[in-house]
């Protein structure tokens, strides 16, 4: 390896051989072109990063970041000694786990079933229809959930015939109810759309393997268990690991539209807690920023950890 690279002829355009001065002379315009983008990223991403100091302040909107008093770790102490934040943390973890554990299997089963269909037109039609929920606005989806699971909703009626009490299911604060609603709503939204990756992985499996197995008399089930699943296992593992990190960051967007004061005990999560502390009726910006920082650091740790783990499973699978 080292030998071959040493033997390679020296490329006159090798980046390392060009001095910064020459590079600037040649590519000035390229750098100028990047300036608007840099300004955009600085305003929307880098400047807010300095906002973390708010987490260490008794922040008031009137005084601003420079006028507010620093209080050290007081906000964090307040967070971890109160119930609301710990409750939100617990719910975030539980909802992430629900989404991952319950939401993972249907996607695989769906993709496997779809890959067995020979009729191309049927397959494409089902696929397209299953993508559609992903494009329905979150506001509309949550409204549909409220409508279908409300006191007089069709799904409530179905559950009532199964022997469950008639009620507005979204106002039910008993433990698994809200979590299940949130999970199944997520499955409805992303089943088809989430299967795109898997479908392409299955399509990429060497066709000769399948043919050989079929000629040798393997049944459909045998082919799935012995060929398809082992072949897509690395991708499954990778997307699972990375989804852990991503779901911890993103869980809560739907909850914000779905929850109500009665269900805070089971529905409140870091995202909604942070939001409510900042923009709710009794805001405490410092506390909100502390919660935000905690969530953000945890998300980063999980993302980096997930990425390393994904790289161990499959070196091509890393996100960065």
């Amino acid at each position, binding site marked *: 390896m080292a030998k071959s690279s040493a033997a390679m002829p020296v490329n006159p*355009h090798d980046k390392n051989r060009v001095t910064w001065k020459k590079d600037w002379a040649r590519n000035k315009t390229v750098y100028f072109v990047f300036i608007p983008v840099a300004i*955009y990223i600085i305003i929307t991403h880098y400047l*807010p990063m300095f*906002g973390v100091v708010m987490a260490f302040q008794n922040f008031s909107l009137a005084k601003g970041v420079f006028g507010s008093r620093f209080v050290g770790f007081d906000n964090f102490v307040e967070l971890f000694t109160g119930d609301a934040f710990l409750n939100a943390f617990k719910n975030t973890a539980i909802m992430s786990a629900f989404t991952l554990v319950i939401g993972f299997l249907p996607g695989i089963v769906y993709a496997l079933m779809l890959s067995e269909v020979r009729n191309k037109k049927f397959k494409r039609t089902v696929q397209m229809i299953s*993508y559609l929920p992903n494009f329905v606005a979150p506001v509309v989806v949550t409204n549909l959930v409220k409508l279908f699971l409300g006191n007089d909703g069709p799904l409530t009626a179905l559950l009532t015939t199964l022997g469950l009490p008639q009620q507005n299911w979204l106002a039910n604060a008993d433990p698994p109810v809200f979590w299940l609603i949130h999970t199944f709503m997520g499955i409805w939204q992303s089943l088809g759309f989430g299967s795109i990756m898997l479908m392409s992985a299955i399509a990429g499996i060497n066709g000769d393997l399948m043919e050989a197995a079929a000629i040798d008399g393997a049944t459909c089930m045998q082919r799935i268990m012995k060929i398809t699943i082992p072949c897509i296992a690395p991708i499954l593992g990778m997307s699972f690991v990375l989804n852990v990190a991503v779901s911890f960051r993103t869980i809560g967007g739907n909850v914000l539209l779905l929850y109500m004061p009665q269900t805070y005990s089971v529905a409140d999560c870091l995202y909604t807690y942070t939001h409510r502390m900042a923009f709710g009726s009794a805001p405490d910006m410092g506390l909100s920023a502390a919660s935000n920082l905690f969530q953000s650091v945890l998300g980063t740790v999980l993302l980096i950890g997930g990425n390393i783990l994904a790289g161990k499973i499959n070196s091509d699978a890393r996100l960065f």
Partner: protein
Amino acid sequence: MRTGKKTKVKEGMVEHLTVGNHIANFLIHACLIMVAVVSLLPMWHVLMSSFSDGFSLLSFKGVAVLPVGKPTLEGYRLIFRDSSLWIGYGNTIFYVIGTISLGFVLNVLGGYALSQDTKGRGLMYAFLFITMLFSGGVIPTYMVMNSLGLVGNRFVIILLGATQTFYLVFAAKSFSAVPVSTVEAARIDGAGHIRVMFQIVLPQARGMFFITVLNTFVASWNGWYEASVYMASDKTKWPIQLFINEMTNANVNFLETATPNYSRYLIQFAVIVVATLPIMLAMPFFQDKIEAGQLQGGVKG
């Protein structure tokens, strides 16, 4: 030759299908049809409800497979009378066009800069990747916008939705796929960077670029959060999604009253249809683009 062989094998497989295989096949098709039905049913219910007679709809409990009561266009007539909804649609269209335009410019510029073979390319990439790892979050962003005087300003929605690190990297990837020889030939012929960007590279990468535009369109058409934070009290700047949210939330309490006004119930369905149907109808034409975009993005989102 090869394809001929393949079909032969497949035909052979069909001949050897056992009874069990037939049953499995049938079950698979049945399950998939069910997935399709479940995916469509909620929106179908909304569509049919919007054509329903408002009064019968109120007492109807179930999924509307067909319009409930006598089919009417009353719901849509009510939209025309409600000026606030027109404001909502106007704002949404304004935000969508603004976001896509700003995003397009930024993605072309950023993608081009990142795709060129410069000494500073690594630095530029690092500059972007840091934002993927560390984010200030909602509140610090709000404070920055506040100090820039943008809270309550329509531009803030466009600014925050225009592009993301991911789109910029994606743009760079699609620009890099354009053959270097084409670019170099144009450069030797005396074309400047800007000219190469818009006249040589962009047309060749337009397929990939379209995916980003499509994603931006869906996100900004369906967006509600930024508006709810930055212009919570100013209804004249609300996008349609916030009006839908307000209307449906109000209706939840409203329906508990003794004599609910059915027209307010009916109009919510009509509004959802008008806000959702365009996307639903357009998406099937872009199936390949949607899939390509998702594959490029990997597990993102």
